[in-house]
């Protein structure tokens, strides 16, 4: 069996729930986790005689997202009905946007701070707004084929983002989703919580296989039911393998078989064929006569653009330059959200040392937040306090060997760095004292000196240990340095 080179080709369809107060076409609250069917009204129940009225806030959030995704905004957009029968769709149609979505032709830039793939643009075909359906809960336990329906979600606003098939690897797919989530959470458009279903991803996947006879495209498969970014990565990797072997055994090419839908089984780590909800996918779209077209003026778009604030990609680039930190550091900090970025910037400014500030924020501060499940706002040390702390280290007034101790103390007591240093009895040891101490130690430990001379530099550790016992404030690195110099001088 010959091995072929092939390329994975992926387009994503992402559904994102908007963080509005109320649903898209009625006044019901838009909220996750309420008791079933408590957030409903005649409109979202689809009762006879009801009419939808568009939620301005939802449209505003949708505009924000589309502008941030570099999309063209349509001057006029309309609503269409997508007709299909399903028990969690009370009207028998979903209000969506068909041929005139409010935005199209955008892109999102992705890059890998670890450099596995170069920076690239993933094209966005369209972004449109629609209402969500309710939830069907199928209880098939004990032979019961009971279905229960919760319409709390019915009518909540949903943004559909469709990418071009620009994604070439599972890693790129994950990077795109991570960047998208970051962008939308920065904009406070969505919380993008996959567990709560506020971000859902389907992927259209196929392969371009390079054969001696030319490039062959395999049939496109829609992969659903991926419940985490990790699952997306794995499902795509699995699907690439599967499609390659499928092609080897059947030779099926794009267009030769109907489009298949497969679901990711996270337990088994495989995709399985799925039965379609509707056998035919003729949704009989037509303009919803209950709603009026929405017009968007260039002024409105400009206002939205102004309101976006600085976006993640720009922040990453700026803080790298401004504070001299690595792309990796910038990425870690920005990916934590606006509050952490602001905190970091203040620390960097107060301390005057971006590199150290980045180290402390992304290691110790973030670790603490994670351990204690705090938000940045809940962190007990102000950026000013941490900035002073980093400054002391940068100035050499706090040995890095004892910095962690001081940090922990500050965290406990919320004391300023200088108070903490004093409380812990930390003093800087002046150079003369240090030299004197080292001379005594070298003289008192001829064995160690002997070992060092034989090239066993590790033996110096014993001297450092003794020094620390005599004076806990000494900087161990300095002790090691001075001792080595003394030994080398004596030799010469």
């Amino acid at each position, binding site marked *: 069996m010959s091995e072929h080179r092939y390329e994975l080709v992926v387009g994503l369809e992402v559904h994102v729930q908007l963080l509005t107060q109320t649903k898209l076409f009625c006044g019901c609250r838009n909220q996750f986790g309420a008791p079933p069917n408590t957030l409903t009204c*005649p409109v979202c*129940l*689809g*009762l*006879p*005689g*009801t*009419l*939808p*009225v*568009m939620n301005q806030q939802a449209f505003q959030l949708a505009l924000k997202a589309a502008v941030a995704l570099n999309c063209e905004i349509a001057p006029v957009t309309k609503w269409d*009905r997508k*007709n299909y*029968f399903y*028990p969690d769709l*009370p*009207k*028998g*149609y979903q209000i969506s946007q068909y041929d005139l979505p409010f935005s199209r032709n955008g892109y999102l830039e992705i890059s890998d701070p670890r450099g596995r793939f170069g920076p690239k643009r993933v094209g966005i075909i369209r972004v449109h707004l629609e209402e969500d359906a309710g939830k069907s809960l199928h209880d098939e336990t004990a032979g019961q*084929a009971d279905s229960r*329906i919760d319409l709390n979600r019915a009518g909540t606003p949903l943004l559909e983002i469709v990418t071009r098939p620009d994604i070439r690897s599972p890693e790129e797919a994950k990077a795109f989703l991570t960047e998208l989530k970051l962008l939308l959470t920065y904009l406070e458009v969505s919380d993008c919580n996959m567990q709560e279903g506020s971000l859902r991803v389907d992927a259209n996947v196929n392969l371009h296989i390079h054969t001696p006879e030319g490039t062959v495209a395999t049939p496109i498969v829609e992969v659903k039911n991926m419940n985490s970014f990790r699952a997306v990565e794995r499902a795509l990797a699995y699907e690439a393998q599967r499609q390659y072997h499928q092609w080897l055994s059947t030779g099926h090419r794009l267009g030769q078989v109907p489009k298949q839908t497969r679901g990711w089984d996270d337990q088994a780590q495989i995709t399985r064929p799925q039965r379609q909800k509707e056998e035919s996918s*003729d949704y*009989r*779209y*037509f303009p919803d*006569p*209950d*709603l*009026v077209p929405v017009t968007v003026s260039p002024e409105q778009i400009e206002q939205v653009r102004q309101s976006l604030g600085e976006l993640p990609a720009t922040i990453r680039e700026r803080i790298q330059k401004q504070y001299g930190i690595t792309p990796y550091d910038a990425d870690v900090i920005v990916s934590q959200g606006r509050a952490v970025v602001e905190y970091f910037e203040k620390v960097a400014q107060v301390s005057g040392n971006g590199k150290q500030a980045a180290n402390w924020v992304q290691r110790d501060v973030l670790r603490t937040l994670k351990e204690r499940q705090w938000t940045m706002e809940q962190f007990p040390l102000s950026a000013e306090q941490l900035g002073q702390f980093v400054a002391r280290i940068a100035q050499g007034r706090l040995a890095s060997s004892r910095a962690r101790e001081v940090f922990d103390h500050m965290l406990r007591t919320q004391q300023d760095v200088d108070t903490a240093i004093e409380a812990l009895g930390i003093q800087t040891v002046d150079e003369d004292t240090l030299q004197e101490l080292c001379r005594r130690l070298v003289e008192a430990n001829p064995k160690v000196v002997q070992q060092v001379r034989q090239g066993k530099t590790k033996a110096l550790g014993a001297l450092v240990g003794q020094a620390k016992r005599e004076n806990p404030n000494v900087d161990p690195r300095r002790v090691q340095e001075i001792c080595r110099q003394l030994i080398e001088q004596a030799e010469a």
Partner: protein
Amino acid sequence: MAPIWKASAWELSQQLAQGTLSSEEITREFLQRIEQYNDSLGAFIHVNPQALEQARQVDQRRRRGEELPPWAGVPIALKDNLCTSDQPTTCASRMLQDYISPFDATVVKRLRSQGLVVLGKTNLDEFAMGSSNETSFFGPARNPWAEDRSPGGSSGGSAVAVASGLAPWSLGSDTGGSIRLPAAFCGVLGLKPTYGRVSRWGLVAFASSLDQIGPLARSALDAALLLELIAGPDERDSTCVNQPVPRYCQVIQQPLPKLRIGWVPEQLEALEPEVQQAVQQALKVLRQQLGAELREVRLPHARFAVATYYIIAPSEASSNLARYDGIHFGYRANEQEVLAALRQEAQRLAQAGDHQAVQELDSPLVRLYRATRSQGFGTEVKRRIMLGTYALSAGYYDQYYLKALKVRRLIRQDYLDAFEQVDLIAGPVASSAAFALGEKTQDPLSMYLVDLFTVGANLAGIPALSLPCGFTGEGLPLGLQLQGPLFSEALLLQVAHHFQLHTDYHIRWPQLTEGNQRTHDRNGCQQ
């Protein structure tokens, strides 16, 4: 003094305000007449058991000195596709036979807040789909001028109620002529307002881009008053236009300006002779008595109006009626029977060894949908759902629906062009007087053609009214249609008012047959 039931709503309002009549007296009289005649006329599907009590409450409030409008206490009849929270809203369909809406339609809410008393809900074609009132699950309403004839549809019950003195006025809805045709057939005035003039919140949708609620009354003054009470913007209906409501009652009583009134020669040619004569006579009244200048106008695309309408209306209907699936409310087929039938079918196929077919059998859910909708909807509703589903289907959409939208724009443009030359257009409502019940039920196409002169206004969104303009030799009433530019209701009603000052067609009464003499045909209703 003339009996209460012959008084106009305007006159009743005056009497109520002066205290010479109570709402209880008025309401009781109408309820008695409903009791007496509804069995033979089939005007009401449901009579409000609370009506008398509600009338007494208005009287009490007035006696206590509460500041009430004069018309507080005047009773009214509502077409049974307007949602009411205290009575069923059936749309004359088995599907909603027992359905009670949790809310009042905006128009109902407005009328209630003005103290009007709802007598009950009137008969209609099922989901307002029909031109004869014969598709009602509860059987047809009957024309009070000849009970073997159709009252017209779909707002047949609302027209019959007013024409027979079972209600002083009523509300109907008009999608393709559903107010104007029954008004013409029953000899009352019916107005379809400009699309967006009246809120559709609580009107059970048939074709959302065409539906509009409007008044039926005997006099233009009553229609003007009723329109004044129901019109105006509503935050619950985005298609309802944010435009102030004129004081129609005052405006229409002012002297008529010099008017240019258009008429369409092709329309007159298409009429039965008696209808033609009546319309020509009416044009003469407009010219001679009302001083209007008559001008010929053209509506070149009018001949496509019925075809266009019967693509657009069913398309929207097919989607609007998708919600009646038996899952959340309304009629549901017997689940056990559906399941049993499915199992039997599966067994039969399995025994025949057709395992492929077993695999491809519908899910129980699909079967439940199908059974529910097959049993819950009548033939005409199903026909229109199928027409609309077809017209919207992939491959046919461009050919039918999209093309119809384009023609609709041309039809609208025809009217815009015509209203450059004339202030309004006068003409027929239908080519004949009321036809016999059963005459057209076997031929849907001939039934659809009844809407020939009325659908144009719905497609163009313009206001149009029908007012009594004569009688046939057999004594059947005939209607004159007036169509005007967007938001010209005041002018249409003003012309109608002045027309009525010179004619008496609107104050003639039919000879009614008492109930029980005819057993009301319940047309498949299993009650």
